[in-house]
Structure formats: C-alpha cells, structure tokens
C-alpha cells in the first residue's frame, strides 16, 4: 500500500499545521524570547559577510563582459568591415553603423576594402549580452574586462558611444604587437 500524496515529504521538512492551544509555558513567551536571544547572539560572533569595498575587491567572474572595444590588428588597422552582423544579432537594437569604401592611401588605417565610417552603440540600450562579439566574423568587436562600464552623464546623447570611444587606442595596438613579438 502506498502512502497518500498528502503525506509524502520529499525534503523531509514538511510540518503539519496545527491550531492546538498553547501550554502555560508557551503562553509566557519567555522561553521563546530566550531562544531568540540565543540565536541573535550567535550571529554576533559569526564571521561577517561584508566585503570592505575599496580595500577588498571581489574577484570578477571569468565570463565577465565589460565595455565594448573595436579591435585593431597587429599593424594597427581597424578590423571592422561594416558587415552589420553585430547590429543584426543585437537583441536590444543598440548598434548602428554606416559603411564607407576604403580609398587609396588608407590601407594602413583599415584592413578590408570596406570599413565603418560611423559606428555607434547606444549604451542605454545595450544589455552586455555579448552576442555582437559572437556574431562578428572579423574578430572586430569584443567585450573587454574593463570594470568601468558606462560613466554617468547628464544628456542622453552622451550615452551613444561613437568610434572615438569604441576603437582601440593606437598605442594599445602597438603595445600588443610588441608584446606578441617579444613572446
């Protein structure tokens, strides 16, 4: 014979609710209060959960996704070819861009024949999901581990980040190349 469904307790923590009269000692509440005081005083001596922020910093998750950056290759040329796959994959509709053709004499600036003349990410829309990074065939956009996400601003326009804020600084590209060659 199996037990009725009402009596099954998989967690073993099931408790029957009852309306029984309290005994005299229960009605006094003194024992319950002493028990409560005991519980709180135990917490007094427990290890504290606080992380002292500026001095102690909690380690970031290994899959942390910070601010976007548009990469340059070893020769300092922009990777982005303005294919628009990142904008297409973006679930928040945060990315827009305008493509332009590379002119003669600009080969040291852009890797492909086509490049993004304007590349904008609306940081108020972005949810930092990283789908743009996944979609990019040229390894151009990626999410850094930068702890500074989006600084506070007074105007909405200031949250639309253009190429001036997104493209990797040239010095950083040079440094990266030097590091790579040194290894």
């Amino acid at each position: 014979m199996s037990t009725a469904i009402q009596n099954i307790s998989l967690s073993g923590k099931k408790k029957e609710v009852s309306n029984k009269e309290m005994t005299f000692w229960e009605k006094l509440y003194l024992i319950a209060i002493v028990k409560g005081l005991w519980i709180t005083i135990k917490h007094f001596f427990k290890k504290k959960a606080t992380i002292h922020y500026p001095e102690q910093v909690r380690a970031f998750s290994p899959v942390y996704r910070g601010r976007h950056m548009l990469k340059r290759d070893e020769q300092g040329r922009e990777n982005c070819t303005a294919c628009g796959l990142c904008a297409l994959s973006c679930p928040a509709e945060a990315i827009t861009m305008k493509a332009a053709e590379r002119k003669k004499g600009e080969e040291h600036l852009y890797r492909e024949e086509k490049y993004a003349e304007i590349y904008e990410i609306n940081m108020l829309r972005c949810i930092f999901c990283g789908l743009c990074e996944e979609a990019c065939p040229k390894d151009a956009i990626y999410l850094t581990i930068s702890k500074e996400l989006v600084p506070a601003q007074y105007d909405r326009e200031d949250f639309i980040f253009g190429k001036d804020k997104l493209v990797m600084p040239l010095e950083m590209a040079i440094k990266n190349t030097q590091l790579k060659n040194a290894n």
Partner: protein
Amino acid sequence: MDSAFIIEKSVFIVVIFAITMIMAMYSTWAERKVAAYLQDRVGPNRAGWGGLLQPLADGMKLFAKEEFFPNTPNRFLFVVGPAIAMSTALMTSAVIPWGDKLHIFGRDVILQATDIDVSILYVFGIISIGVYGVMIGGWASNNKFSLMSSVRAASQMVSYEVAMGLAIIALLMMSGTLSLKEIAEQQSGFWKDGWFTWNVFSQPVGFLIFLVCAFAETNRTPFDLAECESELIGGYHTEYSSMKMGFYLFAEYANMFISSAILAVLYFGAYNYPGMQWMSDNVGVNAANILGIVVLFIKICFFIFFYMWVRWTIPRFRYDQLMHLGWKILIPLAIVNIMVTGVCILVFK
C-alpha cells in the same frame, strides 16, 4: 555650607553631565555597531578607528542641517518639546549613586549629586514629566501622524508606569527605604545569611516586570510604537529637523543610559561586586570603591547592550497587544508579587 562642598558638588555634577552625554553619544555608535554585528555586518568603520568618530560626524551633520519649522501656530511649543525631553533625561542622573564614597584631599566625597531620601519617587516624577516632551512635540508639529504617535507614547507610558510602580513597591517593602543610596548599600557583598544580597535574586518577578516596563518607558523595541515607521512615518519627531531632532534622539539614548543605571542600582547590586570587602581590607578603600564605579558602568553597559540585543530579536508589538500585556498581565502579576513578598516578609522575619 562650606565652599569646598559647593565646589565638590559642582565638579561632580559637571562630570556626571559629561558622562551622560558621552554615554548617550556612544550609545548611538553602539546601536549601529551592535545592529550590524547581529546582522552579520560590520557597521560604521570609516570615521576613526572602528567608526569611533561617527557620533561626532553625526552631530556635526545635524548642526549643519536646515532648521525647519512646519506650518504651525505653536512655534514656541515646537521648541519646548525637545527641550523638555532633553532636560528630563538629564535630570534623573542626579540621584543615582555612582559609587561608594571616595577619600580625597582629606574629605569623604559621596559619589552622588544629591542623596534625597525619596530618590525613587523623584526618578518616577521626572520620567513622568518626560512624556510631556513627546506630547508637546507631537501636538505642536501640526501633523496627524505626529499627534497619533504622541498619543500612543503617552498612553503607553502612563499604562506601564503603573506596573513599574507596583513592581518597585515589592522591592521597597523589602528594603524599607526610598533612598537609592541605602538600597545600594543594602546590597553590599554578594552572599549573606544563606542567600544572595542582590535584589534580583530575591525579587526575580519584580525585576522582570520592571525590565519590561523599562523597555516600554524608554520607547524601545518591542514597545517602540511611538516611532513605528511603517504606520507613523517617523513618529512624534517627523516634523523635526536639525538639532531639535538630535535632541529627541539624544534624549532617548540618555534615557536608556539612565534606566540601565536604575536597573543596575535597584536590582543588580549597584556598585557592589563579590569580594568588595576583601578589596577594601587588603588593597585600600579608595581602590575598592573606584573598582565599584567601574563595575557599575560595566553593568550599565551590559543593560544598554541588552536593550540593543532585544531590539534585533523581538518584533514590535501591536497596539492592543501592548495594552493587553500592560493592564491584564503585568499589573495583576505585580500585585500578586506584592502579596507574595508581604507574606514572605511576615513568615521569614
């Protein structure tokens, strides 16, 4: 009256005033620290070592705040309210015996501002006036929440004063005096004639009633209905700002200090500690009595800690539960306690 006496008393009063203020100041720090520790946090720790300068920073902030007056015709009463709360909180410390006498400069210095023989009645009288601070403040605020809060506070204090007084009567029947100094002296030593000398051991029920009433009188949780944020915004000091608000909060902590002192003096042997007689025989009377002062302050600090400890343990009472506890449980219990004490005195003496 010789001038040395006047100097002695003035110095003593100033010292007691300063100590009460400092204790009230650091109670605010301790409140936050204890609350944090009981909740697995660390509490204020930026201003000074362990946040010890926090009360100064808070005080400075309060002084710098705007002095706000609500749209009320009772501007005078609005100022009088916190003033009454503060002065009554400070007046009670006059009759508390902080220690036995000290022998300095060839004089016996009694460590009490004044030893009047009705000190307990004096304390009760002053505490009752303290209700007016809350009442007037709430009334003058011209705000229905403040008024409701002060009505609650007043009725709560009036109801619990009855039980408190009855609890004290049983104690007074045993001690036979109203003077706090004599009550403290009667509890000297720790063990005499086969029983403890401290009153808490011969009056446990009275102590319990007194303790519960002390919580209610100082408006502390679980009886802080006058300040319950969820129903009454901030309570009677909703409309107050700047140092007038600071006075109310300060008065509350000063009251806590004084009521802890009275609890220690009445029931926990005041400045007496086990082995005090041995100390004064072998080390010196002054040393023994100074240690007595320290012991009294340890007891007071324990009670202040207890107030905070209970605050984070027991949730707030509902108003009808509060009245039920006061009138239907504590007062009958106190009367039974008086009768049992009377019978015991008749049988054993």
